[in-house]
């Protein structure tokens, strides 16, 4: 057995079992593989087979469950997640609600369940538990059931039979429905139960082969990881979950960032907004979205609510993917990445972190401890994502761009692409061609030709090399038109599109 030696914050032992609440009942779980997923556990160990496996990779939402916590003010917060890619250790201190846990006394169905029946929202029914749970989390959060956001609420759930209209109508019908008294009472009890199991003890679970460590403070995390750099850092597991379910990889030691108290923060410093390792896309979007509407629009198209509720910003950088959505945007904003090894920290421009495909500037024992986003990046920042589907799709080409203009000339340009090379990469020749040019469409049209000098993209299922080159050129032009005031409809904005065609 080769597990991590963790010393708890108080110097005491590490707890070797998990505590969490499942459908109202407190669970104590030990002797379990670190890579056991919540969905497998629910279905195989608890015979709760209402949550379905449609893909085992976070795409279909059939396994959606709600994870409940209390926030700083003691209120309940609800997140929908894909149980197929949640590891058991990530449940410590939370409550999990599955489709079986919704109904009230005497098996009275929950309003979300009733709505789907009344609006004929199911045919084969295999997707239905997932839809119920997505609606239920929106309902509980009192957000996401209005016409303008119902599509986002449901984007992470696929239905192959019914068609989405009746499901959407069911969702919309809930916005005025009243919470039954039994639900309010139940939530009060849940609050108390969550307080009872609240702890700051570190936890480690293992079945003797695969372990999962849940440290609770920054020193513990840093030391543990530096002592055993071969272990796998898990943040949201929206990548790592698939290593297990799809690639059958054997991860012997995992260490989770999610419960480290310093890691869940978004700090505001004078010049920077600092996003720490456990900050999810959803949290970052809620905090930063209003500052930069363009990145808010991008985030809305990042995976789905479930994926954004699990996946982290730092994970999106640390995974080194050439098609991750955030790197081009954050590079365009001039962000820095911070790496920590024990107590040694260093910062570097984000673009320098990506060395080549599959290789990042991260030494053994080092981890990504934050990303520093400049506070003052200007109005000219834009990002554009091109993918085959609107929601829940990986980019074929992704561009983040920013520039400064003085008088009528372009004085600085940062144009960064994803999907065009083995790493997120700046289009330096395009940038050069823009410098000192008049701030007008013609400059962008001319500069866009340099895409061919900057990139030699791949052909794959998402797009051919030619498509990528052409699309990248067009994005540079579109950026120019948009900044200089031509009418460029924002296709990511449904209202704009609907106005155009009606």
């Amino acid at each position: 057995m080769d597990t991590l030696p963790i010393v708890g914050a108080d110097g005491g032992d590490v707890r070797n079992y998990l505590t969490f609440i499942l459908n109202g009942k407190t669970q104590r779980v030990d002797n379990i593989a670190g890579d056991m997923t919540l969905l497998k556990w629910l279905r195989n160990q608890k015979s709760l087979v209402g949550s379905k496996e449609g893909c085992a990779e976070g795409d279909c939402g059939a396994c959606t469950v709600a994870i409940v916590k209390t926030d700083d003010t003691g209120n309940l917060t609800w997140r929908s997640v894909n149980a197929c890619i949640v590891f058991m250790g990530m449940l410590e201190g939370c409550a999990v609600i599955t489709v079986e846990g919704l109904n009230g006394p005497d098996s009275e169905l929950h309003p979300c369940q009733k709505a789907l029946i009344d609006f004929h929202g199911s045919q084969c029914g295999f997707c239905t538990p997932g839809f119920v749970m997505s609606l239920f989390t929106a309902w509980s959060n009192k957000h996401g059931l209005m016409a303008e956001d119902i599509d986002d609420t449901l984007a992470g759930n696929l239905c192959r039979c019914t068609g989405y209209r009746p499901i959407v109508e069911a969702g919309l019908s809930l916005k005025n429905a009243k919470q039954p008294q039994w639900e309010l009472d139940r939530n009060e009890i849940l609050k108390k139960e969550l307080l009872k199991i609240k702890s700051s003890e570190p936890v480690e679970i293992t079945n003797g082969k695969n372990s999962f460590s849940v440290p609770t403070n920054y020193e513990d995390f840093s030391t543990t990881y530096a002592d055993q750099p071969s272990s796998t850092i898990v943040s949201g597991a929206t990548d790592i979950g698939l290593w297990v379910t799809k690639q059958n990889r054997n991860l012997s030691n995992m260490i989770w960032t999610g419960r480290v108290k310093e890691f869940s923060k978004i700090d505001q410093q004078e010049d920077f907004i600092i996003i720490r390792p456990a900050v999810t896309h959803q949290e970052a979007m809620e905090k930063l979205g209003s500052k930069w509407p363009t990145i808010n629009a991008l985030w809305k198209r990042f995976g789905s609510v479930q994926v954004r509720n699990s996946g982290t910003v730092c994970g999106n950088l640390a995974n080194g993917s050439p098609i991750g959505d955030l790197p081009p945007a954050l590079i365009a904003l001039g962000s820095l990445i911070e790496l920590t090894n024990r107590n040694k920290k260093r910062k570097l421009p984000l673009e320098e972190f990506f060395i080549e495909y599959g290789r990042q500037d991260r030494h053994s024992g080092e981890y990504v401890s934050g990303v520093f986003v400049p506070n003052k990046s200007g109005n000219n920042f834009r990002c554009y994502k091109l993918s085959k589907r609107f929601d829940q799709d990986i980019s074929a080409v992704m561009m983040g761009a920013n520039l400064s203009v003085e008088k009528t000339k372009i004085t600085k340009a940062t144009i960064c692409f994803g999907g065009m090379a083995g790493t997120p990469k700046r289009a330096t020749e395009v940038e050069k061609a823009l410098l000192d040019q008049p701030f007008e469409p013609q400059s962008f049209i001319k500069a866009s030709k340099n895409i061919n000098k900057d990139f030699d993209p791949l052909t794959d299922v998402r797009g051919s090399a030619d498509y990528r080159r052409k699309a990248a050129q067009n994005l540079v032009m579109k950026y120019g038109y948009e900044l200089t005031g031509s009418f460029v409809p924002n296709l990511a904005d449904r209202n704009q599109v609907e106005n155009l065609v009606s």
Partner: protein
Amino acid sequence: MKDTDGSAKEGIVHKAIRHDSAHKHVSGAAKYVDDIAVPPNTLEILLGQSKFAHAKILSMDLSQVENFPGVIKVLTAADIPGTNDCSPFAGDDPIFAENVVSYLGQSVFAVVAEDIKTARNAIELAEIKYEELPAVINIDQALETGNVLGPPAVIECGKVDQALAKSKNKLEGKIILGGQEHFYLEGQAAFAIAGEDTDIVVHCSTQHPTEIQHKVAMALGLSNHDVTVITRRMGGGFGGKESQGNLPAIVAALAAKLTGRPAKLIYDRDDDFILTGKRHDFQISYKVGFEDNGLINSVIVDQAMRCGMSWDLSEAIAARAMCHAENSYFIKNMRITSHRLKTNTQSNTAFRGFGGPQGIVGMERVIDHVAHHLNVDPLLVRERNFYPHKTSATHGITPYGQTVHDCIIQDIISELKKTSDYADRRKDIEKFNKNSEFFKTRDFSYSCKVWDFLQCKLFKPSRCTATCLQ
């Protein structure tokens, strides 16, 4: 929906009625195959898949797989007591490939283990030596090499070549239609329990329990009455569980029979994508002769369809594509040729529409091409060529010889034109597109479809309907 006399009738048709399982769907209580509480000694199965699209199997050493702790049995063709076939009728779909593999991902053997994780670990240890053979993957390659399942099928009416030659205008073209994955949300699933004597019960997510019964019996060398198939419900099928459920059902039954323990085979989504057939992709080439007013005299259409490595249901699907090739238009001179191409890919199968949509799209393309050439609204060309209305003095005849007595598409289209404000909206769109440099709004048009309600082989009555697409 009103009855012909205009009055809604008493009964269930005009009422919104709840799905009889809806309350179970929403509470997670509806049970699918993988949800059935199984005995603790249930085994899980994983298929060993071919690593090549086309290859000879030179040798197969599965001893390490068999000896892996937790593996109970490894199944190959040699373990099948009956017939090594899971095809719906043609006898050309082996359960486990023997000697030759014909597509990437084809089932070659199966690992039966205590649990799926063990099976996944063990399967890596299989040692199979292949000699790669040239593979025919796509339609172009199959046409080039003449790789077909059978000779071309032809339907012809009138004097096609003469009418084409005499036409004022002639065009030719081609349209490529991609395939489509069913993506039933519940993957293929089967769970088998051997009972007393020769009895076996198979729970299976299938659209065709009868066929499962027959195929399991054939493979296991049993009588049909030995095999009970239970299908409570499916998590979607769309044609993908018409014949494609045979393989997992047979393998689960075989494992249960040979080990004496219940056995379950659930395709993981990736395996499901790779193992199962899809909608046929088509290349439709055409020649059309027509007059300046849009009247079509003659059409020659060649439907090349990718069937995959075996027949599966391709013959009937091809027939349906052919019987929809003229769509709702009266084409007096027409030759429809179907090329049923054999490729080293999954055996393509039933999918909603069963070939009809492909046939229809081909003809709609011809119409659009003609309209584009004449620079007129495609709807004019459609209207010019519709089957005569049911009240006309003479009726149209389909290329396969059926008289179309009941055509009402003219009524449907004229009503749709009114209710959809067709003319004004088209004008608006044209104006917008002219003035908008980068962004063009979607176009607005009608597409018509004829639907042959009965199996086209029988050439029974057709109806004309139209759909409004925006």
